[in-house]
């Protein structure tokens, strides 16, 4: 790969991958349930970066017969954001309700279903 300052698809994808993997690490290793939620948000953002990068570099052309750009990636990203918002709302509500009954938001302690 020749060195160039021109920013392209792989760069964005790499940023997305890094974000995703940081999120993954957070999901894997955080004790606090809210931290896990945050890490999830990171992962969702990483996905969004990828979606938009793909849209930008691979499908950035008008829809046939119209002057509109093909922005499927953007629309998908919006839906991801919608879902993320719903997820955060419900997730936080769950965490708070668990916290209320257990006085803890520690994921390690949420193992009532184990063996």
């Amino acid at each position, binding site marked *: *790969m020749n060195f160039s*300052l*021109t920013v392209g*698809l*792989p*760069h*964005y*994808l*790499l*940023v997305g*991958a*890094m*974000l*995703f*993997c*940081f999120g*993954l*690490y957070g999901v*894997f*290793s*955080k*004790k*606090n*349930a*809210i*931290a896990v939620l*945050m*890490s999830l*948000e990171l992962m969702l*953002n990483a996905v969004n*970066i990828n979606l*938009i990068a793909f849209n*930008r*570099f691979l499908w*950035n*052309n008008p829809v046939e017969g119209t002057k509109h*750009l093909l*922005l499927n990636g*953007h*629309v998908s*990203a*919006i*839906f991801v*954001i*919608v*879902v*993320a*918002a*719903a*997820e*955060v*709302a*419900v997730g*936080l*509500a769950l*965490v*708070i*309700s668990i*916290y*209320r009954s257990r006085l803890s938001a520690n994921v390690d302690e949420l193992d009532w279903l184990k063996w």
Partner: protein
Amino acid sequence: MGDIASGLIFLVFALLTVFSAYLVVSSKNIVHSALFLALTFVGVAALYVLMNADFLAAVQLLVYGGAVAIMIVFGVMLTLRSGNAQNSNLDSRNALAGAIVSLLTFATLGLVVFTTEPWRKTVDLSATGTTTGDISWLMLTKYVVPFEVAAVLLLVAMVGAIILAKGVNDSK
């Protein structure tokens, strides 16, 4: 000149995003994590702008920065017990395994990114201008059903969140 500038700008925001994402997961104080999360969102929004996704950048700021981050901070504050903020975001015993698996995942993703020939595009298609109209056009034509479904999802999530957080009043 422009290439270098845009490259530098990308570099700045990419680093901001990635570094604050790193801090989100590495910070020992969960409030700091939440704040860095907000910073990450802002950085991602900036990346969107660099990709000509201005509408999405604004949505990102509005929804993630203005709502999700705040909600999370709020949730943190509601579930934080006094006096232990400094150690509120500890790693569990899975940390090492999690790190290894995350690294592996990253290696895999990197492998895919760099070995997939059609993806090695650096061409700036230089399509500029607003994306708002096109997104709305797509939303109201091709994706109108998912759009409505998303609306229903949000409503359901809202009701669910309220019920979960408030608790059901049994005395009724």
